[in-house]
């Protein structure tokens, strides 16, 4: 059933459209949206299951074969990301039910949210670089309106910066697509990958790689492009911050992962080295930014940047490892090459694991910040305080994800960090490992800052040594209990992922291996040109390239070279 690839895209848009039809009834909109997000999650699960069975699933939209039509394709990474999108959507919508105000509900909050999830699914599933641009636009427009919805002054200030810088990203993206199309004459990822793998002018390809790196770097909020994120994340209602933290920057990170593992593998020693250091500086500068903030959501926003850095440097380690392995292979050091390749696999798996971990944890922390805001009507740490005593349960729900974010064992953040540290040491990127560990202690520092000032410290106007109001003294504000449902759900998911790290890590490892295998496969494909039996054997394999492009097209592509061969 190939249509399962399209469902995660279609369901949210159908939901959004259905909501528009019942514009005047927020209750119906709530119902439809809940149904739609459950549908999205289920379709994500179905897709995940199918990818688990077949490896890769794809569908040709409008029935035109690749590379001429648009392909939607799910490999393991894509399926994982779509599943994540489903989790974020469902918990986000539940949280919205408890926290969003009537005004925003009346003015299209739910359809905007659904459209964003649709766009995100599209970005995770598309197999076409221009189509990716379109989904980026959908995500940008819906997130911009969500950000500005409500029209509060700070919101508008943040939204202007958000949209300006992201439009810059779109422009660069479009420029990149144009130049790339000029070079390669195609837009399909798999087709690009196959065609560009065999070029005699890799430096030219790298020029376009740089353009995309800048475009995606803005989206992912990497150094030195991250400015829109701290300017905007803390301004909208917490549910919006949370959902943004869950999937928005991940779209940029995913785009980098996809393009630079499939298409841009010509000069990994350069491109991925830049990504590695971009990530390293991003994580450092983000965490330093967080260290001086005193507002809960601002701290969290800066940490998002820092964590994006971890993901990127993990990806960079993988790339640097692969290119070092290739060099070692050329020099005949097979053992060393195998070590480096294993390290690269570990790095990539760790980076993907980090994406999942960070989505769940950061979203949860934003949700807790929202709950704190609901309780205390404040986000400045000085004005909060006393929650450890008054709200022990909320305290636990903050502390667990916060420690996870800081990479404390046995929580998910630790496993992600461990994978990256180990991979970094295996590949030999010692400086980046050192930076990541320094960042880790600074992360712990700012998480304890929230904990010590927001939870441990007495409430404002209470002298040092007193605890403040007792548990049960304060009544739950309306919607508070409903807000706890997604919070608890996310904590449970994260803890499950932490304790069952064996199986969880196996999933991302398979995804990473699959990504790395694509590059090797394309290499083999070209190396075997001219040897018909070898090509036949290779084309029988089921992977990203064969699933998208089909045997016939690939054979035709390899034919001319076949004829030239003696």
């Amino acid at each position: 059933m190939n249509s399962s690839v399209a469902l995660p895209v279609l369901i949210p848009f159908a939901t959004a459209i259905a909501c528009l039809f019942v514009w005047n009834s927020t209750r119906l909109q709530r119902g439809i949206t809940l149904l739609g997000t459950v549908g999205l999650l289920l379709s994500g699960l179905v897709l995940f299951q199918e990818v688990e069975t077949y490896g890769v699933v794809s569908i040709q939209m409008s029935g035109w074969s690749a590379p001429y039509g648009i392909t939607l394709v799910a490999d393991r990474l894509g399926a994982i990301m779509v599943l994540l999108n489903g989790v974020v959507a469902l918990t986000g919508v539940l949280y919205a039910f408890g926290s969003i105000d009537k005004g925003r509900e009346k003015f299209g909050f739910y359809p905007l949210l659904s459209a964003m999830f649709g766009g995100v699914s599209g970005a995770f599933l598309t197999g076409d670089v221009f189509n990716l641009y379109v989904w980026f636009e959908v995500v940008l427009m819906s997130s911009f309106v969500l950000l500005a919805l409500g029209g509060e002054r700070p919101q508008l200030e943040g939204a202007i910066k958000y949209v300006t810088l992201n439009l810059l990203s779109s422009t660069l993206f479009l420029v990149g697509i144009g130049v790339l199309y000029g070079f390669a004459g195609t837009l399909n990822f798999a087709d690009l990958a196959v065609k560009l793998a065999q070029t005699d002018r890799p430096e030219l390809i790298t020029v376009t790689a740089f353009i995309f790196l800048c475009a995606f770097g803005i989206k992912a909020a990497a150094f030195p492009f991250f400015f829109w994120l701290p300017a905007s994340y803390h301004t909208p209602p917490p549910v919006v911050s949370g959902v943004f933290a869950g999937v928005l920057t991940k779209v940029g990170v995913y785009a980098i992962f996809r393009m630079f593992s499939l298409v841009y593998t010509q000069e990994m020693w350069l491109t991925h080295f830049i990504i590695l250091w971009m990530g390293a500086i991003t994580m450092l500068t983000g965490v330093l930014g967080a260290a001086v903030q005193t507002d809960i959501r601002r701290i969290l926003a800066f940490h998002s940047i820092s964590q994006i850095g971890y993901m990127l440097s993990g990806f960079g380690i993988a790339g640097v490892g692969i290119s070092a392995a290739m060099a070692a292979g050329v020099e005949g050091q097979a053992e060393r090459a195998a070590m480096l390749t294993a390290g690269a696999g570990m790095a990539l798996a760790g980076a993907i694991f980090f994406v999942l971990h960070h989505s769940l944890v950061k979203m949860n922390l934003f949700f807790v910040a929202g709950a704190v805001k609901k309780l205390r009507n404040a986000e400045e740490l000085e004005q909060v305080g006393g929650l450890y005593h008054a709200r022990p349960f909320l305290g636990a729900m903050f502390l667990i994800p916060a420690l996870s974010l800081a990479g404390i064992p046995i929580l998910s953040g630790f496993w992600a960090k461990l994978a990256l540290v180990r991979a970094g040491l295996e590949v030999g990127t010692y400086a980046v490992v050192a930076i990541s560990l320094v960042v880790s202690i600074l992360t712990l520092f700012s998480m304890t800052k929230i904990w010590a000032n927001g939870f441990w410290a007495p409430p404002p106007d209470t002298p040092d040594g007193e605890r403040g109001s007792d548990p049960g003294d304060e009544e739950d504000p309306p919607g508070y209990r409903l807000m706890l449902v997604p919070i608890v759900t996310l904590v449970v998911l994260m803890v499950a992922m932490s304790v069952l790290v064996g199986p969880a890590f196996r999933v991302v490892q398979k995804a990473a291996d699959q990504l790395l295998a694509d590059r090797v496969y394309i290499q083999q494909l070209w190396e075997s040109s001219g040897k018909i039996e070898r090509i036949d054997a290779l084309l029988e394999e089921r992977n990203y390239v064969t699933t998208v492009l089909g045997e016939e097209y690939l054979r035709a592509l390899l034919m001319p070279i076949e004829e030239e061969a003696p």
Partner: protein
Amino acid sequence: MLIATLLIFGAALVGPVVHRLLGRFAAPVLALAPLAGFIYFLREAKRIFEGGSVFENWNWAPELGVMLGFRLDGLALLFALLVTGVGVLVVVYAGAYLKGHVHLGRFYSYLLGFMGSMLGLVLTDNVIALFVFWELTSITSYLLIGFDHQRKAARDSALQALLVTGIGGLALLAGLVLLGVLGMQASLDDPWSVSGLIEGLAGGAIDRDSGLVHGAVVLILLGALTKSAIFPFHFWLPGAMEAPTPVSAYLHSSTMVKAGIFLIARFQQGFSGMALWDTTLVVLGGITMVGTVFLASRQTYYKKLLAYSTTSSLGAMAMLLGLGANAAVGAMGYLFAHAMFKGALFLVAGNVDHGAHEKDTEKVGGLAGKMPLTFAAALLAAASMAGVAPMLGFAAKKLMKYGLHGSEWETILVVGVTAFSVMTAMVACMVGVLPFIGKLKGSAGEAHEVSPGLLFGPLVLAVLGVVAGVMPGWFAAPLIASAASSVAGAEKSVSIGLGSLMKADLSMALTVGAIVAGVVLFVVRALWRRATSPVEWLDVVGPARMYTRSVSGTLWLAWWQTRILQNGYLRHYVWTILGTTIALVGYGLYRSGIERIPLPIDQPFYFEIALVMFIMAGAIGASTIRTRLAVVSVLGIVGFAIAAVYVIFGAFDVAMTQFAIETLIVIILVLVVYHLPRFRSFSTPISRWMDVLLALGFGAMMTVLALLAADVTLSGPISDYFAENAAPVAYGRNVVNVILVDFRATDTFGEIVVLALAALGVMTLLRLRASNPNGGTEGDGGKGEGA
């Protein structure tokens, strides 16, 4: 062993519930968990004493090299018994000490959580699991030190302890993983097991001379020394005394701070003999041993005295471990004795605080009559601490000195150890004697003996210290011997009659002399403090000050860089992004040989040149003209000229679209301009030149890119397929339209969604305003960036 560990973690989880259900009986019930572990380890003890060891292995995440592998050998046994045994006493003590505290339930959780982590730490045989438990002890310790969370001092010292041990912890992680990676490269069977790695190091499979091994040594030592509060990281431990007393007794004397010593002991066989390892331990351990006991001798607060003397003892153990196989028995012996007497003394301090409400040893006196049992425990423990025969402490001091023999450092070390003994004896008098003798003083008048729950712990520990000293062969000697032999390696193990060595004999004049000197020092302590007061200036350059400075320095750096980067000006953000893009892409173009790009100047059409002139003039005009209306019309010129370019190249439909859009934009802008505020220029000349520069740079970049895209074709475009198939297969003669609605309909769908969203956005932005009372929000958003 997994079960014993999990049992304690389980007790931690249900702690608050048990507390709520059982009230004051919760402590004894919860203490059953460590008790069960204690009994289990006792039962295994015999096998260990005979030189055996017990292994267990469970898979956790083999992909990451993480196994729950456990190994019980002599060293692990000693620690496991301490952790569970003292653990039982402390849980019972805490139940009585914190009776009625609102957060007692949570306290049980943290304490038992710590206990489980500590037990796991000493038992595990997997380096990653070792770190996992290590870090868990740091976090639970953070929660315990900050237990009196409403006080700022408690919160701050909790953070200090967490940061110092946290930094060390991360170094340890790097060191351990590095070792594992080296193990992988050396193709060890199980590169992630502690025993496997040590074997690899000792056996030469891993080259100990390599730089990476030295790196691993530095990192692992950093972890161990921070955790065990060895100079220059000793300062966090006195700060950690903000914790409730049972915590100080358990974490900061008996167990957690000894985790660093454990780690050193564990890796002793792997690294011993490396100059870096040995020298670091002897020098830093020695400095800590003498230096911090000196600091202790100048204190008067009960727990500070104990804290500084604890760091000093830890220093002594580290120093002994640096001396190699011979001294291992001294290290283990002293460690065991220290856990007994220091644990007891901390609990005594808690009792004095509880019974007489006094934390300063000088301000209270004559408690002996009021609190006789506490006094008994204090006296026995202090005697052991001072090294009085026949206490265990006496035997331990002898074992220590035995370890110094034959060292190249012997003379200076003997001097150091003697100074250490003298001042330790003095401190012992201050904590074990001073509050109890003399006239009733301070709050002692209203003092009362404490409840049995509070007496149980210190008495048991103090009495054990005596029993172990009098009858060393019963349990103390085999325990110490088996621990020492797993530290030093079975073949190198001390084959001396440990029992007889530990027996009290009066031949050691030095020991007796030290005690006497200590007592003298105690008597003249006021004079001593005055005489040594010049050292106070050390505070200014001391490590504690360095800690404060580096924290504030980091924060300043963070503030500065954030101020520069995230300064709130959109203009600067755009500059940075464009500048980086131009630099990066420019570099890419430079290295790809753009000089080879042919400029298409061979056959210029005058018509095209004219259009380009129009466009350029329009662009220049738009950026220099100061009235909005004029800018709008000049921009219109640019748009129409571009559309004309499309016409020249035959793209009539695109041109038509462009004409329509341009017309609409000009009309809309003209309509809007009327409503806008007066035009004002906010930019400075410098920033305007920056704009010019970046615009030119970006323009140049785009020009080169466009020329490049037109010049280079690596493979044929797919558009041929569209042209061929549009009419016959897709039944449309307008290829562009067919692409939009058929070949790439999904793109069009997406763009329609974008338009719909934009329309929705415009509507909501106009109608739902914070200032609009009808659709007003509740001010749910946060604050702006506040540039």
